[in-house]
């Protein structure tokens, strides 16, 4: 490679490594942020789920005396019953209680005459947290009681209760421990890509807008070096920071794995050297795209601050495919693999699910991102060649 390009690249790397703020905010933050957030998120979710489904169920009941046998049944199932009086709807809306049972006064009369007796269950289906777990546990209890009583009634009349079950369902969930893991880790590709964007962000700003702000650009351009070489050197330095951050993110993630509650979530997940290498090959071409996009934006910015504002916004781009894929299930097609970021998301998710990724798809992801990256890099060089580059202020 051209010696001048290397000179520029090594100078930019040296210059920026000396800036502790850059190293901290790009490599360190980029690498740490995602994995740590994943650990915190997963532990919070699994802890909450465990809490709600294993903790003793507390039933708040208005009109306990109207259904004594029901209360006895519920208590025999291990639930704690608490008397409630007042306005059930208000208590739920005020978030005083998660769920309240109201047993109307006509319950005994209907119950004894064999008519469906009503128990009212108050809850807020849109409330945050695990209210739905509590609510489902209560419903299951009531259904259990109802079935027990119903079966007894049929038996008393000499009818087999199984007649009521015309059809039964046999569950065959083919999800594997790996695919459950992939679901829980659906945000991993985003964090990896975000790390990559964060890693190259500061270099793109410093090598472009920074050069303008500290008034060193004109002197630099006076050297006998082609602008395309100059920009290539700067881009390579920027890309290298992105790739280093990507590897750092992968390693941080590996070290964060033991802190993720996989066992209690029934998930199996391994992240060995092979996966790290596969992920790196998929993600590395994206760094060219990230660095070029950031550089292009920074070229147009008049100051460091302005560049920072716009370039930071870029970090939201990789979020779009991740979010869509989390909400809408997508059947992977070859063309999708060629789309940068989308391809990485799909391929990484496939690997996480333990599915084999075909070689063609794998190459499609890498090549697709590489082509887009190189085209953007060429655009960045073209923009850098403008005479007005120096006078945009």
């Amino acid at each position: 490679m051209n010696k001048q390009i290397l000179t520029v690249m090594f100078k930019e790397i040296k210059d920026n490594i000396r800036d502790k703020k850059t190293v901290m905010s790009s490599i360190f933050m980029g690498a740490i942020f995602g994995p740590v957030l994943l650990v915190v998120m997963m532990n919070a979710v699994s802890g909450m789920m465990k809490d709600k489904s294993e903790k003793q169920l507390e039933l708040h009941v208005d009109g306990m005396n109207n259904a004594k046998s029901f209360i006895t049944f519920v208590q025999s199932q291990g639930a704690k019953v608490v008397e409630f009086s007042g306005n059930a709807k208000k208590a739920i809306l005020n978030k005083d209680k998660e769920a309240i049972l109201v047993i109307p006064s006509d319950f005994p009369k209907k119950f004894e005459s064999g008519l469906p007796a009503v128990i009212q269950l108050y809850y807020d289906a849109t409330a945050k947290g695990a209210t739905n777990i509590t609510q489902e546990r209560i419903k299951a209890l009531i259904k259990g009681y109802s079935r027990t009583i119903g079966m007894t009634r049929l038996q008393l009349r000499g009818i087999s209760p199984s007649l009521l079950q015309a059809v039964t369902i046999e569950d065959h969930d083919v999800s594997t421990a790996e695919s459950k893991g992939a679901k829980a880790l659906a945000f991993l590709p985003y964090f990896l890509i975000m790390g990559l964007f964060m890693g190259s962000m500061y270099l793109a700003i410093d090598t472009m807008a920074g050069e303008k702000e500290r008034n060193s650009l004109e002197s630099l351009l006076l050297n006998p070096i082609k602008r395309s070489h100059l920009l290539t050197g700067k881009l390579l330095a920027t890309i290298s920071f992105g790739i280093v951050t990507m590897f750092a993110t992968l390693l941080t993630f590996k070290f964060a794995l033991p802190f993720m509650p996989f066992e209690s979530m029934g998930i199996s997940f391994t992240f060995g050297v092979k996966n790290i290498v596969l992920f790196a090959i998929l993600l590395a071409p994206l760094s060219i795209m990230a660095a070029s996009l950031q550089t292009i934006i920074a070229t147009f910015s008049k100051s460091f601050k302005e560049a920072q504002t716009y370039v930071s916004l870029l970090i939201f781009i990789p979020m779009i495919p991740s979010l869509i894929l989390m909400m809408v299930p997508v059947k992977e097609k070859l063309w999708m693999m060629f789309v940068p970021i989308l391809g990485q998301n799909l391929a990484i998710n496939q690997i996480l699910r333990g599915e084999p990724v075909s070689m063609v798809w794998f190459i499609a992801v890498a090549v697709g991102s590489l082509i887009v990256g190189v085209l953007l890099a060429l655009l960045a060089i073209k923009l850098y060649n403008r005479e007005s580059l120096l006078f945009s202020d």
Partner: protein
Amino acid sequence: MIEVKTVSKSFGDVKAVKEITFTAPDSQVTALLGANGAGKTTTLRMIYALITPQTGEILIDGINPKEEPEKARKLLGVLPDTRGLYKRLTARENIEYFGKLHGMNDADIRSRTDSLVEDLRMQEFIDRKTDGFSQGQRVKVAIARALVHDPQNIILDEPTNGLDVMSTRGVRRFLNKEKQRGKCILFSSHVMQEVAAVSDEILIVNDGTITAKGTQLELQQQTGKDNLEDAFVYIVTNGEGHE
């Protein structure tokens, strides 16, 4: 030697430089003297091929910077108007970077840097990071950086702008020494004493053209004034003499 022949440049409707012609020979200090906005910086920027002239031709030791910008830049050492340094690098590293971009090897960079350090008296701060340097220290580093490849032609845009007396004298002494070595030195300034002190030939730039030229004495004789400032004012105001 720098030759400028009927060179013009407009930015939109504004004609910054109008058919300027002059020659800056070797072993001589040539000054472009003019008020702010007279077209000095634009003229210099066209010489070092940062801006392309719309008419005319420029030759640096026979090389046209419009056609061979890299080759022309090798023959030029330029201290531009904006002269920011990389503040996380030491003064020496700043100079080295430009030396490498000029394709010099490490040994040449080292010996040339050493002699520049001596000439510009930079011993005290050469290995310090340039963050927090005084204006004078910064200009010295910027000059050393621009001249690391020991070019035949030296261009300086307002070289002593914002410098104190001692630094100004240091720069002047250095330019004189380079002149003795046979270099072609072209600089721009709006400071009369400065131009009077170092230049062999003065080109007065006004409104994008050269309105008068000669030595200080010649200019004073042409206008019948006894100092350069009065002569300058006389020339740029067409003899009316009002400020």
